[in-house]
């Protein structure tokens, strides 16, 4: 079995054999990757608001970064400031609203609409943070690759295990299907997010992310998610700010 059950991982952790590196004192040099802050290409004509898929994916990428570093909104706000994006992501509340526009989110009351400029700002922030964390992302990915090649349990690799534990924990507590979604499925999602972050950590990462987002097939949302994809599209097309309550 490639991805073990959580109980199995917990028992491994208790033995103390495998978690030799703590996430927060891992010996990574900070790296400076010069990001090319090119103007991202415009999206498809008429797309004034982010689709549910775009909103969900941006939030999941931020969740991945958070799971890698242990940092949360402070890092995002600092990045927004460094990139002069305060008008789009002004403070913690604004960020909370943007992230809670993800249709997969449990919480209600957040704003549902994210306009395309706000999505673009989040893309730049994600590229910036991924570049900052490039060394950690790469090391985690290398551990994962070594584990897969040697048919070892990825959860037993210190960096991968820490990342997956964090991601699973955040996903379970924040997403509407967190209680019911199969653990292997969340683990697979976490690993795919990790792989994507590697590619977005490049100086060309933001353009890659933007292009991929605009071409990403529509995501299936659980029936009880706050907003279905078609609702978002209709609302975006009508230019309405009024969204159905969850």
């Amino acid at each position, binding site marked *: 079995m490639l991805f073990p059950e959580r109980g199995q991982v917990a028992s491994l952790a208790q033995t103390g054999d495998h978690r030799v590196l703590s996430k927060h004192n891992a010996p990574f040099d900070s790296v400076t990757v010069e990001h090319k802050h090119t103007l991202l290409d415009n999206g498809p004509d008429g797309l004034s608001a982010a689709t549910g898929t775009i909103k969900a994916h941006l939030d999941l990428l931020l969740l991945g970064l958070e799971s890698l570093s242990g940092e949360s909104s402070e890092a995002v706000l600092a990045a927004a400031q460094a990139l002069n994006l305060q008008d789009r992501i002004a403070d913690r509340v604004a960020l909370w609203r943007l992230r809670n526009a993800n249709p997969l989110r449990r919480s209600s009351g957040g704003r549902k609409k994210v306009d395309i400029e706000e999505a673009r700002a989040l893309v730049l922030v994600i590229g910036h943070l991924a570049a900052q964390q490039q060394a950690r992302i*790469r090391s985690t*990915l*290398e551990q*994962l*690759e070594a584990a*897969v*090649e040697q048919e070892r349990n990825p959860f037993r690799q210190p960096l991968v295990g820490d990342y997956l534990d964090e991601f699973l924990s955040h996903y379970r507590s924040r997403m509407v299907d967190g209680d019911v979604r199969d653990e292997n499925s969340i683990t*697979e999602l976490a*690993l*795919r997010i990790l*792989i*994507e972050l*590697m*590619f977005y950590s*490049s100086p*060309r990462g933001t353009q*890659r*992310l933007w*292009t*991929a987002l605009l*071409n*990403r*097939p529509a995501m299936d949302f659980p029936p009880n998610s706050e907003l279905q994809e078609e609702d978002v599209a209709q609302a975006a097309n009508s230019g309405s700010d009024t969204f159905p309550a969850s």
Partner: protein
Amino acid sequence: MPSISHTYQQPTSTLTVQGETSNPIEDSTTPPVRAIQRGFECQLEIRQGETSKILRGDSVWLSDLITVVERYVGSQLQGEPKGTFSGKAAIRPLDFISHRLTVRQGEEGIAQVDLSMTQLYDLLENLTQVAADIPHLSSLKRQVVRAWYRQPAGIAALLVGGIVVVAGVGVWVTRTPEAEEQLTNRVQEQLTTPAQPLTAAPPQTTDQADLDLLSRLQEQLAEQWQSPPDLQESLIYQVTVDATGSLLAAQPTNVLAQERIGQTPLADLPQLPPDPLPEGAQQFRVSLEPDNRLEVTQE
């Protein structure tokens, strides 16, 4: 004529390009390699631990490589990884974290490298940078490739995520750039177009269909087969074709056939047929013989 070279370096990948120019660039903001006009050559080293693999090619080769790797990573990042190919390069997923790159290089035949995700990242970084530095790469003058009787064919067939994607095998005569472009377009069309339902073929009896496939295969191979002058014995293959007559696989059935497959029109095909066989696919015994003779029989 001044020669220019540059090396692009990533942890697991080193790409060195070189070429000649009559007008060196003196503007320090422009990459010197942009001035390359002719004689372009490149060498790509992909490292894994203590071992490394060296690949070499010309501007068309590198251009194909850039195209397929960028397109492939794009499909990865959109959440739907898909194998892809163009001209002399192909890449496909092996599992969620590794990939198989296949390239044809000059007369040396086909080279294959399995890449991890970090190796793919490093390769993409080098390729994206060289593409930005030499935007006219694909229009650089091609080098003359000397082959004793034919030009190497493009990578024209591969299995993609369980979906069979097939293109014609043989482009055995010297191609003009226009002809190559047409081939590339045709190949890419087949890749991106959803698989045609095999049942869309005109209805015909099985026997008649088999006969048609056999005669089409025979005609196609007869046009392409040029036996090497030193060939003394027959090269025997089990060849699989789909319902439309496109070649899917060629499995050597004798040792000599295995050794000399690179000199046959079947060189670019996978050896193992898809399992299960697509509906309507047929298998034939193909014997390629000295003096440009061949025989195709029903299995």
